[in-house]
């Protein structure tokens, strides 16, 4: 009985995610106007950040790989672990093709997310996920180039008195460094995997 319940609730979860996607994401892209599917105006995002092993990296450091880029912060207990866990599942499902894909988790909370913090956090999810952080200016520049948005929100009860709002979509960047599309929050890992496999 328990298995049936869990399966059914799983179905509800998937349906809800689909719902959210249809009702919220479908007609609103990362910058508010663009579609989540392939957009007509492609762009080349850039960044100058530090990875969780203390290496200075740019978008060129990952040239030749498909990038899955997600902006978030480690004090985020809900959306960020969920998305990172889903990206980990995508990497598992890709099997031998996983070497062609690199998931990047970019902190939009440089004040709390130092290199060591990022290392502790990303390693929990998947060995292939790279955590990136930098100075406030570097993060702001990276987000701008991805047309991603984030903001600090004062909140009395939160650690250090604030939380962060951020673009929750995962960006797909081609091996040539061109923005391809976003996957809205809650896109099932199987769907992302299939879409990637069609492109690899």
């Amino acid at each position, binding site marked *: *009985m328990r298995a049936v319940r869990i399966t*059914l609730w799983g179905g509800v979860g998937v349906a809800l995610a689909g719902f959210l996607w249809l009702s919220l994401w479908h007609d609103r892209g990362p910058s*508010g106007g663009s579609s989540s599917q392939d957009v007509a105006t492609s762009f080349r995002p850039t960044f100058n950040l530090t990875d969780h092993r203390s290496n200075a990296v740019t978008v060129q450091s990952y040239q030749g790989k498909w990038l899955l880029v997600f902006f978030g912060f480690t*004090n985020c*207990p809900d959306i960020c672990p969920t998305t990172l866990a889903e990206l980990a599942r995508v990497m598992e499902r890709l099997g031998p093709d996983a070497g062609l894909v690199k998931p990047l988790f970019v902190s939009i909370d440089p004040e709390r997310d130092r290199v060591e913090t990022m290392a502790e956090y990303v390693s929990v999810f998947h060995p292939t996920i790279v955590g990136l952080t930098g100075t406030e200016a570097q993060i702001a520049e990276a987000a701008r180039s991805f047309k991603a948005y984030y903001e600090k929100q004062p909140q009395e009860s939160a*650690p250090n008195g604030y939380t962060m709002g951020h673009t929750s979509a995962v960006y797909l960047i081609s091996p040539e460094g061109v923005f391809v599309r976003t996957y809205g929050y809650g896109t099932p890992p199987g769907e992302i995997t299939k879409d990637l496999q069609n492109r690899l």
Partner: protein
Amino acid sequence: MLRLLSQALLSIVFILSALPVSADSTRVGDLVIDSPWARASIGMSRPAAAYMTIRNEGTVSDALLAVSTPLSGMAEVHATSTKNGVMSMGPAGPVEIQGGGNVLLAPGGLHIMMMKLKKALIKGKTVEITLAFKRSGKVTVTAPIYGPGATRPE
């Protein structure tokens, strides 16, 4: 499409609510708390989250007013909201559970945010979560702790 989805959803929710209370359910008054679970924390300086479903089998609305756990110095129900693709979270305030209705606390939506951790939430252990309802009073549920990458009850 949306209408079809919502009908399918409603019928599943309806079937689920008709199912008998299972082992991982806790009853208080007219409320049934189903499948509570928490995510392991990553260290102790970051907040952790817990999820569950609250069903109201009565006809009168109730509300979840406060939450607490022995592992956290502070806990609140938080809501994740999306505006133009930007997600943010904040205290949800009282969470109403209408008569005959249910409220799902699940990743990407409502969650119990455990802050100022006194102890880490370790995979394989459990956390006691005390829920205070407006009408039904207090109840404590035991939530298994799954891995930090869990996205649903396992």
